[in-house]
């Protein structure tokens, strides 16, 4: 896929993506970025660097927690996991997002 076809993330959507990605279970930072890229079929370009400040921010907000675990390579890695508050937040943000895209879609379909 060419560079131009990739989309920069919209402001504020990274949080939603991280939360959604963590829904099935705990994951370390690199895996999260890989998963987002992979599931979006390489359309969404997650700036790998900006992932970590976002993770730390979500952790401070209490939506995810982190603990050290052993990665698939046998090395220590920091695994993130949704908290109860995080699950609630994900639900809320998902709804908001759906309403948002729905509204945008309607406006665009107007013609």
């Amino acid at each position: 896929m060419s560079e131009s076809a990739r989309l920069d993330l919209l402001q504020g959507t990274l949080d939603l993506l991280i939360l959604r990605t963590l829904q099935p279970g705990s994951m370390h930072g690199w895996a999260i970025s890989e998963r987002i890229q992979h599931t979006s079929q390489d359309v969404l370009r997650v700036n790998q660097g900006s992932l970590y400040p976002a993770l730390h921010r979500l952790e401070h907000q209490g939506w995810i927690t982190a603990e050290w675990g052993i990665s698939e390579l046998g090395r220590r890695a920091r695994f993130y996991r949704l908290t109860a508050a995080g699950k609630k937040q994900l639900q809320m943000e998902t709804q908001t997002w759906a309403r948002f895209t729905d509204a945008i879609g309607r406006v665009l379909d107007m013609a």
Partner: protein
Amino acid sequence: MTWNDFTLRVRALVRSSHAEEELDEELQFHLEMQSRQNQSVGKDAREARRLARAQFGNVAFVKEECRDMRGIRPIDDALADVCYAFRAFRRAPTFALTVVATIALALGLNTALFTIFNAYVFHPAAVHDPDKIYRYTWTNRSGAGHSFSWPEFVIFRDGNPVFSEVAGTISLLARVEGNPLSGELITANYFRMLGVGAEIGRTILPEDGISPGSAPVVVLSHTAWQGKLGGDPGIVGRTLVVRGHPLEVIGVVKPGFAGLNATACDFWVPMTMAGQLEEGPDLFGSDYPNRLDIVGRLKAEVTPGRAEAALAIWSQQTTTEQRSDERANRIVLESQATMVRLTPQLIAAAAPVLVAFVLVLLIACANIANMMLSRAVARQREIGLRLSLGAGRGRLVRQLLTESLVLAVPAALVGLALSEATISFGQRVVVSAMPRDLAQIVTVPPLQPDIRVFGFLFTAAVVSAILFGLAPALQASRLDVSQAARGEFKPELRPTKLRNTLVTGQIIACTILLICAGLALRASARLAKQPLGFSTNGIWELDVTEKQRSGVLSRLAEEPEVQGIAAAQSIPLNGMLPTVPITTGGGVNGIRSAYNVVSPTFFSVLGIPILSGRNFTQEEAQAHAAVAIVSQATALRLWPAQQALGQTLHLLPQPGASMESQIGHFPAVQVVGVAADIVSCCLTIGKDALLVYLPTAPTAAGTELLVRVRGNAERISSTLDAQLDLVSPGAIDQMHT
């Protein structure tokens, strides 16, 4: 901030190096994973690593952002600033020491003042719920306060609408075992109402005050017990002779409680002992003397405002039967929660002192601000460098302010020590400057710094740090970055305007302070130099109970050290003399003149010369004969053109006024002598304009005694004390020089 957030921040702060390592490890892991993936798609190891870094972006920048997320940046910065400030001041110790010393001095003085103010005005009385305790009285038409008779007290206690409990007090001075003590007669519910308990023994209980004359007991204050009475652990059960009456000590109250008045109270006796301990008509007798003061505890639901309104109506209703000039005109309800009430009058009276002290602090701040300013000029290069490296101006100001705070903290500590020293020194000076026996009566409340003092000190330190730090910081950081980057520094930073303002302000404040100090010094020097018109050296003043007057007089006459004994209704320098309207029959009609009733020896004992005419004779004194001696000023005023001797003066005392004085004996008097002018009332007023002396004898009731002694006054006073105690224990209430 959620709890989760808080714990994370604390962890980040406390284990910052740990958090830093973890962050490092996490990002390293990511890069490792990424380069492995890159390798798996066919890149060689080096290329894979390079690519991983490129995909990741600026690692240092990401780390910085992650740190920001921890939310401890301001604290981190502050810590760094503090460390930096310490390093800077280690390089310039003289500067730092000067700042600390200057601010400490100013802070110390202000803290000392606040400590004193705090002890009197803010420190709550050591009673249960002090905010509900109020003193109540009323003033009559002419503004004179009212003391209550026993029946009035009973009516008030039982009928008033606002107090849940009411106690009566009468203050009392007595010499006990050679110490002047100030005490109170109290209704027996006093301690129960205030909720004050005993440290040892018990307090006075309602059973102690059932009928007049009951329970010859006394309760001591902790300070009096420890200080004046020597702290005897077996004090309870001992007998103290108070005004000639043996009273059993039943307890010592908890430390910290010394009555509700501004002067400390040393002992308490049940009100029912009034007949034994007080002079004059019996409190419970049919004369109904007005003596009681009333304090009470407001009912829980009654606010002071409502209480005042209710009491105004109540007191007017209950006094409608009385003579019009004795009716309640305005009621006074004074909170007893602190020793001194914080009223607008108090603020007005204290304002000059407060302003002076605050000015001292401001001058010190201005001084330091100036020093900081010149330091900032010297630091242009450093500040310029930081600005061009991208430091924000706010960040720089914060750093410079941190330096000020770092200096203010030790200054506050030194200031605290200084204030302690000032207070103890000041106390010593004041006490040693007071006459010995006054110093014995005046008890200073404990002046320990408490939470309020620390709060004040802290606030003052921070405010002064901002005062002396902010202006220079703002000034210093106003550098032109482009110039600074080229390394161009102006020789001066143009802080001239600010500096000029500071210096001008300082000079003005200093001048004001100096002028005020000069005026105060001059005034007191003038007072000290003022001739009194009589000699106070070796003069003792004795206040004797009437029953033992003759015994004391004959014992005094036998003492070899006693040179002379005089009696006077009013002792000079003890306050305003009473006045009476006088008429000469000639030109002067009805002007008020001060008068004093004195024994013939008064003039010789005090060394007041009789300028013309003669002194009173013994016979005239015994008989209260219709003769008078006037002061020189009086003679000149009343008979400017004539001889004063032989003239007749008519005294016109108002009916009912000053019943206890002897003025009623003298409707018309013949002037037999002229005495030199003296200062009777007080130094600030000066010599009396009009003063008439009338004769009396030392044996007459209602006069105070003056004794002139030879030799060492202190030693003689103690021997006299002991000797007199033998003939008539407790006869002497007070002894003064």
